[in-house]
């Protein structure tokens, strides 16, 4: 068993956890962060991408509103390249008449959220598809955020400052010493799910930053807290339609916001209290509701092509919880378990929202420091993460760079303009277990065809990289990657041209010389020994606690240890992962697209009859979660 000694162990690789690791490392603490899947895999990577101005909270939750506008101004500087400056409208549709708009204006003034009423004509000129029947429009400094990139960037900054980040490391239990009234968390038992290894991490402070999963972690210390997973479904339209965030000017409710993020427009969201944060079902009634509500802001939006749907879970903390979950507070909750439950060395941070992650981290590390002894002061509000020098991103930046550098022939994911070098550099320099991890890095497969063309290409390229020895001697490369993860320019085609990345040193790329590559001359190609080394292990805990999943997988799979980066497994996993998000919205054009993807993979490739069909990765079961429509077309 591997042992790690650290000062602070952060559990959870979302925005909050990574923010804590960054902050604590900058203050001079020795920090280790564990995340059971990939960074942002929980809630951070499943939200609609709004950089709140605070406008949504000015009436209902003024404290949150003030926090939001404060953090909004900071993140635009510290994480500039992760943010698009879209601006935001609050529009009064015919259904929103009443006293709310005036309360809204008043709330903005009281909370410090910049707000200006603009003429409807002006709003329609800027956003011609907006409902022409709106009566008033207020503009606020909303923006949109790439939460994958922002979290990666925060992590890179944390690693620069000395933090250790371990993805695909799942918390199995807390190590607790002492008896009643004098208990102390001294570390955690962790499972490296990629390698199938146990790891023990000793720490003076364990910070539970698992968001909607926080109650499950405190349970490991025998403490019950009320964190309600509030499930929200989001629907992404195939193209932006709008370039400004548009909110309904009313009390926050289902489907009242359209957020243009990168190439898509996201309609959000529902809010359903669920018992299990892993319950990511997308009900037909939720999809239908998003489309119907979206039409109220942008008439006929529902007739445009839907590219995907997904669900995320908000962490909603309430001391004495009851009632509908949207009414639970969106303020964050910082729990000192020593003070509350007599358990030393253990802090929980939950609640809140992406926009306030940095503030949450600051307050959390302040509390940790009060126990561990203060070091340096917090500097995250004035420290830019790597890559922020690029300034705010804008929709056309990839197109622009590709044309400037003439990289059109290099495109691997044609929908989202991902070049081969971007893919290779991300794969080489960042940890990954599945192509889905690469997707979050470079937006692979996130466009209209949903992996229809790029899955094959990405699998072929990763496989070739493996053959060329890119990961030689590092069978467990998914936790290695490069010495330093390089994410600063990960999304920039111009910064990832052939030769600039270290991947370019593959033999066949240099000379363009004709002939066999040395390692292939031995004859037939088969499994290489080092590929079979890693083991994924039993994954008992993953299979047990999710009743909705298919429980009838062949028994022999459980004990099998798949070779890492088996191309057939990469391919199957990613196709299923993409399917999971399109299955809820398959009709019309996206159904046609799916049928083309079927023709490619089930017929031309015959990829459902490849060898290694019994292999499973740490994510296979997660991807098999059933998201196909049920009969609930209206809220049951």
């Amino acid at each position, binding site marked *: 068993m591997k042992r790690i000694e650290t000062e602070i162990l952060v559990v959870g690789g979302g925005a909050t956890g990574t923010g804590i690791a960054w902050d604590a490392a900058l203050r001079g603490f020795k920090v280790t962060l564990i995340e059971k899947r990939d960074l942002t895999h929980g809630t951070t990577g499943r939200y609609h991408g709004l950089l709140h101005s605070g406008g949504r909270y000015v009436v209902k939750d003024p404290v949150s509103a003030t926090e939001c506008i404060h953090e909004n101004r900071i993140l635009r500087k510290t994480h500039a390249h992760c943010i698009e400056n879209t601006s935001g409208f609050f529009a009064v549709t015919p259904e929103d008449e009443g006293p709310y708009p005036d309360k809204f204006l008043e709330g903005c003034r009281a909370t410090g959220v910049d707000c200006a009423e603009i003429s409807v004509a002006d709003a329609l000129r800027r956003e*011609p*598809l907006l409902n022409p029947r709106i009566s008033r429009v207020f503009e606020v400094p909303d923006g949109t955020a790439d939460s994958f990139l922002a979290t990666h960037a925060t992590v890179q900054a944390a690693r620069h400052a000395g933090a250790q980040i371990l993805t695909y490391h799942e918390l199995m239990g807390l190590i607790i010493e002492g008896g009643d009234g004098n208990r102390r968390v001294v570390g955690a038992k962790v499972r490296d799910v990629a390698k199938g290894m146990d790891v023990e991490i000793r720490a003076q402070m364990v910070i539970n930053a698992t968001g909607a999963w926080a109650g499950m972690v405190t349970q490991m210390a025998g403490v019950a807290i009320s964190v309600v997973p509030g499930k929200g479904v989001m629907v992404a339209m*195939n*193209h*932006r*339609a709008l*370039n400004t965030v548009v909110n309904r000017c009313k009390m926050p409710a289902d489907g009242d916001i359209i957020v243009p993020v990168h*190439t898509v427009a996201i309609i959000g969201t529902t809010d359903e209290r669920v018992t299990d944060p892993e319950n990511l079902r997308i009900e037909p009634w939720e999809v239908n509701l998003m489309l119907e509500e979206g039409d109220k802001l942008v008439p*006929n939006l529902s*007739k*445009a*092509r839907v590219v995907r749907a997904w669900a995320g879970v908000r962490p909603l903390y309430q001391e004495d919880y009851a009632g509908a979950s949207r009414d639970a507070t969106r303020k964050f909750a910082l729990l000192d378990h020593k003070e509350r439950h007599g358990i030393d060395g253990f802090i929980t941070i939950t609640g809140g929202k992406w926009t306030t992650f940095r503030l949450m981290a600051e307050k959390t590390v302040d509390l940790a420091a009060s126990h561990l002894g203060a070091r340096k002061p917090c500097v995250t509000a004035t420290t830019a993460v790597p890559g922020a020098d690029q300034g705010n991103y*804008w*929709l*056309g930046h*990839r*197109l*622009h760079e590709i*044309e*400037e550098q*003439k990289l*059109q*022939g290099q495109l691997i994911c*044609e*929908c989202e*303009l991902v070049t081969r070098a971007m893919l290779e550099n991300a794969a080489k320099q960042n940890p990954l277990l599945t192509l889905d991890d690469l997707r979050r890095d470079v937006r692979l497969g996130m*466009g*209209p*065809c949903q992996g*229809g*063309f790029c899955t094959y290409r990405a699998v072929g390229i990763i496989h070739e990289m493996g053959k060329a020895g890119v990961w030689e001697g590092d069978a467990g490369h998914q936790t290695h990657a490069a010495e330093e993860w390089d994410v600063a320019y990960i999304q920039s085609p111009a910064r990832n041209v052939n030769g600039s990345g270290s991947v370019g040193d593959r033999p066949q790329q240099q000379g363009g010389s004709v002939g066999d590559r040395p390692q292939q001359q031995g004859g037939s190609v088969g499994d290489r020994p080092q590929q079979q080394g890693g083991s994924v292990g039993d994954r008992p805990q993953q299979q047990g606690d999710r009743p909705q999943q298919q429980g009838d997988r062949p028994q022999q799979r459980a004990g099998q240890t798949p070779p890492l980066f088996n191309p057939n497994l990469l391919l199957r996993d990613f196709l299923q992962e993409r399917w999971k998000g399109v299955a809820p919205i398959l009709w019309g*054009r996206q159904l*046609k*697209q799916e049928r*083309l993807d079927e023709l490619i993979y089930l017929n031309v490739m015959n990829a459902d009859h490849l060898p290694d069909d019994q292999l499973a990765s740490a994510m296979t079961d997660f991807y098999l979660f059933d998201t196909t429509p049920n009969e609930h077309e209206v809220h049951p």
Partner: protein
Amino acid sequence: MPMHTQSWESVGPSLDECIKCNICTSYCPVAEVTDKFHGPKYSGPQAQRFRENGQPQSPDHSVDYCSGCRVCNEVCPTGVRIAEINARARAQAAAEHGIPLRNRLLGRSDMLGKLGMIAPGLANWGMRQGFARSIAEGVLGISKHAQMPTWSREGTFASWLKRSAPNRLRSERKVVYYHGCSTMYYEPYVGKAAMAVFEHNGFEVVVPEQGCCGLPLLNNAEFPAAEKYHHHNLEWLTPYARQGYQIVGTSTSCTLTLKEEAPDMLDIHTPEARDLALAVWDIFEWLRELHAQGQMKTDFQPIDMVLPYHPPCQYRAHHIGSPVMDILPLIPGLDVRESHARCCGGAGTYVYKKEKYQIAMDVGQELFTWVDEQRPVTMTACTSETCRWHIESATKLPCRHPIEVLAAAYGLYDLEKRKLTKE
């Protein structure tokens, strides 16, 4: 002018239909011969998702190499308005980078027409002088190899109309003729042939005030100017449409512009624009309908010859099939052979541009080779004027409008001398 989505009727949202299959790029005649153009899918539905909001546009000019032939639209299995998306992207780029003087000149066929008509002999002579053309190429970027149209030496179509007014047929059955700039200034005989055909079939022809359809401007990315032109035509022509007139044109590009190009590219979806579009007919589309009703005269004289006919790219966009092939084969003796070549390469004013001349010639090779295979032939035919000029220049064979052939079959027109028999 903001180029982003104005309405769901705009061409932009049709990108939603794209399933990424790349059939368009595989059939694109321009992408086939040059990689200065990265193909219709790349420039069209793919790039369009990155193009909203008036943000800075493509720094390269690859979309400018799209010739607008619409092979992509035709082969697209899902109905993406690829060529139109590209045209709008060109316009956006032009709005940012500015429009070269050359393109401004080439975009104004009415103004060029009027200028040349001041002294057509001199103008035509100038156009044939190597020295002058070298200057034009050096200064303006107008290819010195491209054959320019020749200004009419017999006066404009309007002047002939005025001269021949007393001879016009009066009839209960009326039709409006939209002649366009080329008939007006360069090829009045095409208009005369059309008038003869209309009248032979018993129709009184009304030629109301009309302006350039604006297509050359649209092609050269001058949207605001084109919008002005279109509004004039709406003002002049829509009243006729609303009185029930059919507005028939001999230029496939002009009729297409009135029907679809102008409203779609300029996002003008008013009732006026719709009413006008509904009343506009291509002349062979109109004749086919007349024939289907059994009302087209077929008192043809035989024409014994092989006639290679090239349907111009605009017919693709009309979505009316190949109406010329429904009518010309009715002429006894005439062996009309339809070209299946994708494009002649000329593409309106494309071939006149120095940097595109060779591409235009390479694209057209498919057609020129086919014409060669049909020899011996004495002439070819094509429905669009700029195509005719380009095909003549490349094949060294006369190229006629099919309406001239039809008028000749009625015995009203001398196909060789390009004049009415009674003139």
